[in-house]
């Protein structure tokens, strides 16, 4: 059986990669496809909610130029998973536009397959009514029609099936909307008749670029090779190497369980996998098991706008103030509420963060505070930017001049690093949909265009 070499240039399209690593893949191997993941929910709900990208247009184009050039030259597919970050319509369109620009500049033509992953509110409401939706984990509340109506952008993670269709239609470049991260890699393997379990497990490792190597990074290339009953993985940069432990450990990176991985319509069981060093920094993996689920479910993601934010950064060095920080802030809040008596305190929220004390862990911080300086950040969240700005300015001025008990520093309590001190942040989003939806037929639509 033929071996299939899949090149993953980097962990995120637009993160960049050393061109030498990329070239080495073609010098030393017969590459069957270039696949790159472009998406993540790691940066929070803002990308999906505000329809913006994770990487800059310039960085996106820089990476794509190299990939498209090689892909067209060797007549191998270039597949982009979760285009534009969140993989919604705007993100996909943005990616199409950049690719068209590249093709035009190169003065070449290509067949582009675009797979959309967007859903309308009504489609999800119908699914709720038909009881086809469940929460992904126990701490996610059941999905309500009200929550759906507040959610502007809704996508779902596609499996390999629609990507397979694009490959069967001989697309040179495939742009996927939101996809399960390993799916674009797995699709290429499955297209070539490889085992689903091995293809998906390899995809799970390749989607982060060279993060599975030592030293690990998302900004370098990695090569995966699918064989009849195993796959191998190797770094393409001589400064990195893969070890059985680095690859095994990466298998469970960012997942909730080390060896049971849930994907669209299937479960991957990696409990009996073996990871073997077969020399020259090549690690061989066997026994990745693909188990088709009885019910086909896809993961929905939706973000909605919940508030507007204004925030302030300041330092506090006065030990007398640090010693009574909590009491002071309570009093500051009280004065602000009294001043804005016409605004219901339930309509806005003021949060104080104390870096140096418990800025990261909050109430869960186990260490006792012993420092001499506090990095203070406070934010105001309100239903409009105007209210957030107004309240934040009032919190700031009240805090700055508040005459706490035994104060000696009557000129001011806060050291602002910036002028102006108040930063208007704009809308704040939250993941309002993060649920599994049962489907019968693939809802992901493929458009093929000759450009």
């Amino acid at each position, binding site marked *: 059986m033929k071996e299939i070499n899949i090149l993953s240039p980097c962990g995120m399209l637009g993160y960049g990669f050393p061109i030498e690593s990329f070239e080495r893949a073609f010098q030393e191997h017969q590459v069957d496809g270039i696949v790159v993941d472009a998406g993540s929910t790691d940066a929070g709900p803002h990308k999906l909610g505000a329809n913006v990208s994770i990487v800059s247009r310039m960085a996106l184009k820089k990476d794509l130029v190299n990939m498209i050039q090689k892909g067209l030259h060797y007549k191998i597919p270039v597949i982009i998973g979760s285009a534009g970050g969140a993989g919604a319509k705007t993100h996909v369109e943005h990616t199409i536009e950049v690719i068209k620009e590249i093709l035009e500049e190169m003065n070449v033509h290509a067949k582009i397959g675009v797979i959309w992953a967007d859903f309308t509110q009504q489609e999800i409401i119908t699914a709720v009514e038909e009881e086809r939706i469940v929460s992904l984990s*126990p701490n996610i509340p059941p999905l309500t029609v009200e929550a759906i109506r507040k959610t502007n952008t809704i996508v779902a993670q596609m499996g390999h099936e629609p990507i397979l269709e694009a490959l069967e239609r001989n697309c040179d470049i495939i742009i996927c909307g939101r996809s399960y991260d390993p799916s674009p890699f797995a699709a290429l393997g499955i297209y070539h008749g490889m085992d689903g379990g091995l293809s998906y497990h390899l995809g799970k490792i390749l989607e982060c670029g060279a993060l599975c190597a030592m030293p690990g990074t998302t900004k370098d290339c990695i090569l995966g090779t699918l064989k009849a009953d195993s796959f191998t993985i190797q770094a393409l940069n001589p400064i990195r190497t893969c070890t059985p*432990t680095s690859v095994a450990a990466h298998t*469970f*990176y960012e997942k909730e*369980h080390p060896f049971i991985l849930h994907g669209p319509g299937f479960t991957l069981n990696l409990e009996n996998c073996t990871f073997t060093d077969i020399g020259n920094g090549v690690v061989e993996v066997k026994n990745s098991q693909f188990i088709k689920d009885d019910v086909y479910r896809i993961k929905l993601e939706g973000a909605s706008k919940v508030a507007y934010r204004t925030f302030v950064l300041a330092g506090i060095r006065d030990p007398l103030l640090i010693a009574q920080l909590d009491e002071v802030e309570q009093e500051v809040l009280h004065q602000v509420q009294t001043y804005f008596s016409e605004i219901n305190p339930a309509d806005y929220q003021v949060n104080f963060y104390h870096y140096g004390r418990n800025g*990261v862990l*909050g109430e869960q911080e186990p260490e006792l505070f012993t420092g001499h300086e506090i990095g203070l950040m406070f934010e105001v969240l309100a239903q409009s930017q105007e209210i957030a700005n107004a309240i934040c300015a009032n919190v700031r001025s009240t805090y700055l001049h508040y005459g706490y008990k035994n104060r000696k520093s009557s000129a001011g309590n806060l050291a602002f690093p910036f002028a102006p001190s108040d930063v208007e942040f704009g809308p704040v989003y939250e993941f309002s949909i993060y649920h599994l939806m049962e489907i019968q037929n693939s809802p992901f639509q493929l458009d093929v265009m000759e450009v």
Partner: protein
Amino acid sequence: MKLYEKAKILRSKNSGPFEVTLDILFDNQLDYEDVKNSGKVTKEAIAKAYNIALTDIHHFVFFDQAYGIKITIARKISSGSPGDRDVYGAQQHAPLMNIDV
């Protein structure tokens, strides 16, 4: 000995926006087995270190092939929502470091 002295990797990361997953990885079987058999890294110890209920721990699994322990806990506030302090969940591992093993 503290856990951070024995482990090669001690990290935290989001596993989706509603969970944080903690990975404890060792670079040799001996250290891994030592910790696994010490009875010090348990669901109860994690609940105590993070001041959370046992039901907030969604997974607690030893993965022998990777010499690793994986613990997945519920986020009180989902990633990037108002009040969240760690969007990537990347600095939530610290309470594990001082567990005596």
